[in-house]
């Protein structure tokens, strides 16, 4: 008889506390989403502004920067300029080649270096690790003069190779840093198991280690991609020639000392976003696949 009497009031006491916890959770989640939504708006605002104004007449851009391109204000003159003045197809190809090849080298060499640092015991391992990573703290632009001199001597000025080499060097320290930390968490047994299965050290790297760290490789690629694509400094210094210009450099021809062809600038910038988005979509699919495959692990 006493059991239900004692359980009912305690149940009644528990109920409101659960309800309170639930409203608390909803409030927290609303707050988080408000902040995230706000951040999204701030982040997207300039992009949307560029996109909208790239379709407007110059008068409309300055008269009503926030207005939609509609009726009289609509104009594709910017895109026509981009297509006719300057060789933007080449610029895009250049940017794309430089970015993709540099990313490939960063990921491949970074992963190889990280694997060696994490897997093998050799004298100077610790020192080498610090040496490879210290580049994070030294901006590569400090070495611009030396790099330029070197490229001149190697006859690499005005080639995409120069840019690819510089960007690979720029991206490697962070890549080695992130990948080494991750490689250390890989199970030693699985590599030993591959050794017993008769794989050479190279095949272990390519066939066992790389597939295991694919999501991290994608993360590194995404991190390294944007600074390369957006860079103006090195294309301006190392490869300003017509045939080797990248998109960011190509756009500069519309920015004169006295007048700026805003329509063309905005149109070119809009177009420049597209390839990055494609690359990002490609990498992030790898990223998400990696994350979920980890999450389901029993």
């Amino acid at each position, binding site marked *: 008889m006493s059991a239900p009497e004692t359980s009912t009031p305690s149940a009644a006491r528990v109920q409101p506390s659960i309800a309170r916890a639930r409203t608390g959770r909803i409030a927290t989640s609303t707050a988080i989403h408000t902040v995230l939504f706000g951040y999204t708006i701030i982040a997207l605002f300039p992009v949307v502004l560029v996109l909208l104004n790239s379709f407007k007449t110059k008068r409309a851009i300055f008269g009503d920067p926030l207005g939609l391109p509609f009726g009289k204000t609509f104009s594709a003159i910017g895109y026509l300029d981009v297509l006719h003045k300057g060789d933007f197809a080449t610029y895009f190809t250049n940017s794309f080649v430089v970015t993709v090849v540099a990313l490939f080298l960063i990921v491949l060499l970074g992963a190889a270096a990280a694997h060696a640092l994490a897997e093998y015991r050799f004298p100077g391992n610790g020192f080498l690790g610090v040496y490879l990573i210290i580049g994070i703290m030294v901006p590569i632009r400090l070495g611009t003069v030396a790099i330029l001199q070197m490229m001149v001597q190697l006859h690499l000025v005005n080639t995409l190779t120069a840019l690819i080499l510089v960007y690979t060097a720029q991206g490697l320290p962070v890549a080695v840093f992130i990948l080494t930390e991750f490689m250390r968490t890989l199970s030693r047994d*699985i590599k*030993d198991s591959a*050794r*017993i299965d*008769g794989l050479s050290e190279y095949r272990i790297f390519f066939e066992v280690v790389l597939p295991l760290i694919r999501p991290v490789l994608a993360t590194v690629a995404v991190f390294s991609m944007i600074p390369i694509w957006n860079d103006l400094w090195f294309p301006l210094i190392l490869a300003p020639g017509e045939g080797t210009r990248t998109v960011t450099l190509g756009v500069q021809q519309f920015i004169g000392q006295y007048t700026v062809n805003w329509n063309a600038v905005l149109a070119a910038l809009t177009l420049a976003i597209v390839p990055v988005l494609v690359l990002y979509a490609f990498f992030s699919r790898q990223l998400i696949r990696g994350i979920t495959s980890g999450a389901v692990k029993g």
Partner: protein
Amino acid sequence: MAQLSLSAVRKAYDKHVVIPGADLEIADGEFVVFVGPSGCGKSTLLRMIAGLEEITGGDVRIDGQRINELGPADRGIAMVFQSYALYPHKDVYGNMAFALKHAGVDKAVIEERVSKAAAILGLEPLLKRRPKQLSGGQRQRVAIGRAIVRDPKIFLFDEPLSNLDAALRVQMRVEILRLHQRLKSTMIYVTHDQVEAMTLADRIVVLHGGRIEQVGTPMELYHHPANLFVAGFIGSPKMNILAGTVEAASADNATVRLAAGASISVPVGASPAPGAKVSFGVRPEHLAIADAASASITGTAQVVERLGGETLVHVELADGATLVVKTDGECLARVGDIVGVTAQGAHCHLFDEAGLCLPKAEKHVLAV
């Protein structure tokens, strides 16, 4: 199918010596278990046999051929790891076929061998699954299957059951034993669990601090431990060790007076001179609770652990030493009771001051 021999095998990292020198002969088809506390060098020794760890000195031979410099894949061994070490991006079939594919074995042969191994281990319905879709026991079965497929001369197991839960461990233990009976291959198995060692092994190698303390059949180690370490390590609960002095000695017997007062006669062969200090060892299962008035050893029951079928009584003696007595489940002793303890002298052991066991007068019937 192979015979393995280690002679003076050493392992050192720079100046830090892990294994000072191990000698061991393993016969063809034998199931040998390396057992010892963590850090005793058992895994290192196994990894040296596997070729995953460089051999600092000495020789490892398989069928008489020195294999020190051979790579792991060329030694004709297969290894099963504690963490299963399956390739997560390959399905069960891919995992099992991987080594053969690399060796360039014909596709039809691979298929035949994999399906044979899968049949032995009951893995047929799982061949298309990824490791992450399998339970712990299934994963370990795949790892064993991967070893079987390679048809190795020697199977190496590195604590293969330590990641499984208790029930599964018992089940897999039986499966490994059956596998050994079926394949009749040489197997070397590393574990820190003495129950696994006792149940699986033809012979057990007890390691401690990088040294081989004793090699023998499970019953040999149980009845004739070589020294205090093996005596304490094999058997659960641990053997009781008490301090004592030899009172009288004959050709096949020694009478020992314990620090607590009682004197017991133990059948040892070459016994030391009267007056020598010895350690007296007796297993909890060879002690019995008796009437306090008549028994030679008496003490207070400090802890009574009832396991249902049996009872462990921890008895504190007059000099402060504790004896664990394993008795039947019906034992009525309660905490605080004064109880008597009797020991079966035939099952007791004496250890000299260096910790070495004095040889018994006769070998136990099971210890052959």
